[in-house]
């Protein structure tokens, strides 16, 4: 690791970005508490109700997992604009398979075994989609933006081809349990989200895989001299991103009991925003799961508060976009001061 440090302190601009992530996370935690207090003060009875927290716990994991997927792609200095396409394709493929398996009886009657198969197929679709992205990016050396912009369209197009346009509705009961069920009063999606967070946090901070991934983003040249197989690492990282996006798609279709080619289109910007807000550097090298998790919690609190105050959805779009720009501007100013 001494190699990394010398490289990072060199003239490479990205190198100066390596900072302690703890500081940002303390700030994010403070933002969370601030939003919580502010919303409670404005709408005490509605905001603090257990119903409100429960609905947030069902809604947040999809977005959180998508943001983590985006963070993984950003670690190597890339971006994945196809995550929404992958997510919908996973849900739709599973739904189509359920339709075939159940035939006339209707997919709603299917048991646990076909649903396990469906989850497997959905995740496989995601990993394969990620493999395609990774091969295009590392093999053909297409820039991640254009490669995933193109594949994202292909995936959404395939969703349209599979469904013909309308939504697939009526998933099997065990499938909808994934999105709406509870284990000991804790929502299943929240449990899955926590598992994903812990698993990826360990993967990124405690394994050589995670360190190598960050090194590629921090300093590509140093990572080459350190003997890291860049191409293979990038393919793995996009497969991971694709798998996570598929997981988010499974949760989305399970919660709404439907899958459609254009669900969750606004999640793309929000996933980028949450990843950047959570301390991920879009130029690569820096990002941590805890930061992304805190960012998604604070934004979910904020958006739930906006909805209670009956702010129009369009103005929420405005706030998201403005927030993204302010956050990157502040990060950039801080970076400038650090030099």
């Amino acid at each position: 690791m001494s190699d990394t440090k010398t490289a990072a302190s060199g003239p490479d601009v990205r190198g100066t970005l390596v900072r302690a992530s703890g500081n940002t996370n303390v700030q994010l935690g403070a933002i969370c508490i601030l939003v919580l207090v502010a919303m409670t003060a404005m709408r005490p009875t509605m905001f603090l109700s257990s119903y409100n927290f429960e609905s947030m716990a069902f809604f947040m994991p999809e977005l959180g997992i998508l943001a983590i997927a985006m963070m993984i792609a950003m670690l190597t200095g890339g971006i994945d604009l196809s995550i929404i396409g992958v997510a919908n394709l996973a849900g739709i493929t599973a739904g189509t398979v359920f339709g075939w398996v159940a035939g006339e009886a209707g997919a709603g009657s299917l048991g646990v075994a076909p649903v396990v198969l469906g989850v497997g197929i959905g995740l496989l679709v995601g990993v394969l989609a990620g493999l395609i992205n990774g091969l295009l990016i590392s093999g053909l050396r297409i820039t991640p933006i254009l490669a995933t912009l193109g594949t994202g369209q292909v995936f959404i197009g395939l969703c349209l081809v599979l469904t013909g346009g309308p939504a697939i509705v009526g998933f099997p009961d065990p499938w909808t349990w994934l999105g709406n069920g509870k284990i000991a009063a804790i929502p299943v999606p929240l449990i899955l989200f926590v598992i994903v967070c812990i698993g990826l946090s360990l993967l990124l901070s405690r394994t050589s895989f995670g360190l190598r991934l960050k090194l590629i983003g921090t300093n590509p040249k140093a990572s080459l001299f350190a003997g890291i197989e860049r191409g293979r690492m990038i393919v793995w990282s996009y497969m991971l991103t694709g798998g996570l996006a598929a997981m988010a798609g499974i949760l989305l279709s399970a919660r709404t009991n439907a899958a459609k080619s254009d669900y969750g289109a606004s999640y793309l910007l929000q996933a980028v925003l949450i990843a950047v807000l959570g301390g991920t550097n879009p130029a690569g090298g820096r990002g941590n799961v805890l930061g992304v998790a805190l960012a998604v919690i604070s934004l979910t609190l904020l958006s739930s508060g906006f909805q209670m105050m009956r702010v129009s959805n369009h103005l929420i779009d405005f706030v998201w976009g403005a927030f993204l720009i302010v956050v990157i501007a502040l990060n950039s100013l801080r970076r400038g001061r650090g030099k």
Partner: protein
Amino acid sequence: MRLFHNADVLIALILVVAMVFIGLVNPAFWQMANLFSLLKANVVIGLMALGVLLVMISGGIDVSFPAFAVAGMYIVVRGMVELEYDGVVIPFLVATLIGALLGLVNAGIIHKFNMIPLIVTLGTASVVRGLVLGGIGTSNVNINQMPDALIAFGRTDVLTLERANGTTFGLTAMILVYIAAALVIHLLLTRTMIGRSVYAYGADAEAAKRVGFNTGRTMIFVYCTAGALAGFAGLLHSSMIWLANPRDFVGLELDVIAAVVLGGASIFGGRGSVLGTVMGVFILVMIQNSLILMGIDTTWQRVVVGGMLIVAVAITALRDRRALV
């Protein structure tokens, strides 16, 4: 002369082969009415593509121009309806100005904070769409409310032909606007210092700065022109379809970026020409419009466009293949 650049010849060849192929599958392709409608479909996408070309030559990417086009179009048309103003020149000037001002915001943020253009423009797109829909309105301005002068302008034909059965069809005069804009951008890029600075900045921003280009001004030129073209094209679109829909142009960024990449521009910057872009736009529009002629189901359209984008960027990536790091 960059006019007959190698890449442009290759694109022209692809274009000719594609036209011959589509014509063989369905000879109806060669009917003048079809060709005229193809040219008409080129205008709006083409104008936007000229702006995206500038951004891509400078090494950036812009996904905010569809939002800017909506802003230019919807604010102006709603304003005309409210003020009961009927005219052509001032509305187009205002729409162009709105686009240019929004482009200035992009340029300012990207240059000042040295931020990745994709993320900045994702943000500004969301801000502008949110403001237009949340602040100005969500309802369409339909043909019965649309200012008459705009409709009359949009339906002007430069050439009118008669079918065998006596009905007539025409070639829209807007194609002249498009050609004029393409010529201006071409001359700016090839004959002026500011145009050359865009190539220099895209090839190597640091080197451009050291040889004395004012890179801030280059960025302002690039993003303002892109915004201005988008605002203008937005209003032109609404005057051609006699409708102003504040939710229009969703997902158009992909088509336009695909067209520019098809036309040989490189996302790494420093490469791209107006002629190539114009042909890229034509190829994209032609293939989109010809899917039905070739008997392919329209649900495949996005798969085809996405696939075309991937193939085009793969080819340009092979061409631009750089050292590993």
